[in-house]
């Protein structure tokens, strides 16, 4: 019996110790990201308050990399081996990475992607092992945010194949970067294509069994000016018949601010064509 009790006490002690060993409470950070066209996980960071710069989250990179231009803008100086330490490296979502060390370099993959304008945004660097290893990360593509939890440990420093800490040897693939850049140049690509928003008409829509109805017209909006009325049945958007509000949105999606959008509505049995002068808005 004594042994039994001892065992039990032992077990309780073990549980107690486990509870005590559990860190007070792990703080996790939600890090928003975007998926680029080549399906890279892209996060944004401000370095020493400058930026934001675009980084690809890459477990296939041994370290943090950022370009010479980024280093110059953020005032990060390279040591004789090409590494630089960021005073403040803040990820979108509020996570500040202390003393982030990175290689100041432009890996050929970046040169290639930016040359082809493939990401839809200029990529300024990669976040690799030496940073990632300090966190436990959960990535779910169904959500637009990742979860980063700082871990209390110091990961070992990675070693490079060559003497240069990582990027030196890529197995003779380096030419691909300049090749893609050349190809991108021929196709007229820019690293950062111009972006504009869908123009705003200023109507709220309601789906009904037999079609789409204007639920309300925002006062002073372009639709108000053009004479759209609450209760109008929306028949066509950009000359295409619509049966739902999501369809209406799809057909209007490529119409930027400053352009016009043709609507056809039905009011008291009559069909009315209206032209909306779209404005910038959200």
């Amino acid at each position, binding site marked *: 019996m004594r*042994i039994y009790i001892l*065992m039990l006490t032992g077990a309780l002690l073990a549980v107690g110790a486990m509870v005590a060993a559990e860190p007070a409470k792990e703080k996790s950070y939600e890090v928003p990201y975007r998926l680029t*066209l080549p399906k*890279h996980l892209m996060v*944004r960071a401000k370095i020493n308050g400058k930026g934001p710069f675009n980084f690809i989250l*890459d*477990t*296939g*990179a*041994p370290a943090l990399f950022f370009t010479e231009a980024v280093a110059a803008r953020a005032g990060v100086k390279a040591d004789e081996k090409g590494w630089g330490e960021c005073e403040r490296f803040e990820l*979108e*979502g*509020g996570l500040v990475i202390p003393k982030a060390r990175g290689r100041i370099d432009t890996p050929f993959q970046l040169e290639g992607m930016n040359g082809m304008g*493939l990401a839809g945004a200029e990529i300024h660097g*990669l976040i*690799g*092992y030496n940073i990632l*290893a300090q966190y*436990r*990360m*959960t*990535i*779910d*593509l169904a959500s*637009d*945010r990742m979860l980063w939890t700082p*871990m209390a*440990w110091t*990961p070992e420093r990675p*070693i*490079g194949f060559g003497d240069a800490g*990582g990027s030196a*040897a890529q*197995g003779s*693939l380096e030419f691909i970067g300049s090749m893609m850049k050349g190809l991108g140049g021929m*196709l007229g*690509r820019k690293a950062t*294509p*111009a*972006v*504009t*928003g*869908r123009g*705003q*008409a*200023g109507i*709220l*829509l309601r789906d009904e069994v037999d079609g789409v109805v204007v*639920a309300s017209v*925002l*006062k002073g909006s372009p639709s108000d000016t053009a004479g759209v009325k609450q209760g109008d049945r929306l028949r066509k958007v950009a000359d295409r018949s619509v049966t739902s*509000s*999501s369809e209406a*949105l799809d057909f209007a*999606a*490529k119409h*930027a601010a400053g352009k016009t*959008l043709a609507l056809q509505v039905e009011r008291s049995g009559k069909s009315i064509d209206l032209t909306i002068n779209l404005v910038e*808005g*959200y």
Partner: protein
Amino acid sequence: MKKTIIVVLLIACLSSHVRAEAPVASAAVTVPFTLLKTGHMTVPVKLNGKGPYTLIFDTGAPMSIVNNRLARDAGLLKDKPVALFAPFGSRGEVKVKDFEVGGQKAADVKVAIMDHPTVELFSKHFGPIDGIVGFPFFARYKVTVDYQKKTLTFEPGTYNPPDVMQAMLRAILSPESADGAVRVVSGGAILGFGVNQENRTSGPALVVDRVYLGGPADIGGLKKGDRITLVNKRWTDTPADLLEALSTIKPNGAVQVEVERMGKTMTLELLGAAGL
């Protein structure tokens, strides 16, 4: 003495019970990885039951890649004629019926067959490494990377990864990505406000200059003059930032907007509405 044995047995039963139940209770599978001295990680992979082979796990890889040696060994080269132009022994893409990383199985995963020079280089230094596990596999899961425990956990997710090669080809050939083209970003709902960009010494900010009366932004409490600093935790330094941050908005979907108003920071919750 007898009692001790009973207790030990009890504990043993308990732990075996836990072991047996774990894979059933959650379909998440935890896979130990090997951390190479370079900071890269490798995982054991079986293709159509063959293997395990050692592959690099790479969140930065849009494709999964296997080399010719593995492809031959796992019988992936059937019906694959040798192309005339085959840089790095490239043999195109094949769909692998049964793609297993650790204990996590996925069906019909595309892999590209090529002798990737970087992979070959790893192989030379660290023993046979035959490819890369990339996006087409990991995107199907909620993946947790734990470098301290040296584990990857794959929990089945709801995301259905598109064909990356097809998407890229389409994008490269589409007129929208041609010279001088402008990309139009469109959210799936309307909030009913407008902004002005203001350049301050303390950094750029977007200032609300129009809120439509009775619109979703008005109902949510947004006011003219508010400076928008964050939308769904994303920085909004420029109108383009705001467009991107609002590009995922849906009717009845909540949007968290952090604003500065008279020196105070507050977070508003706006509800998107169906509309144009």
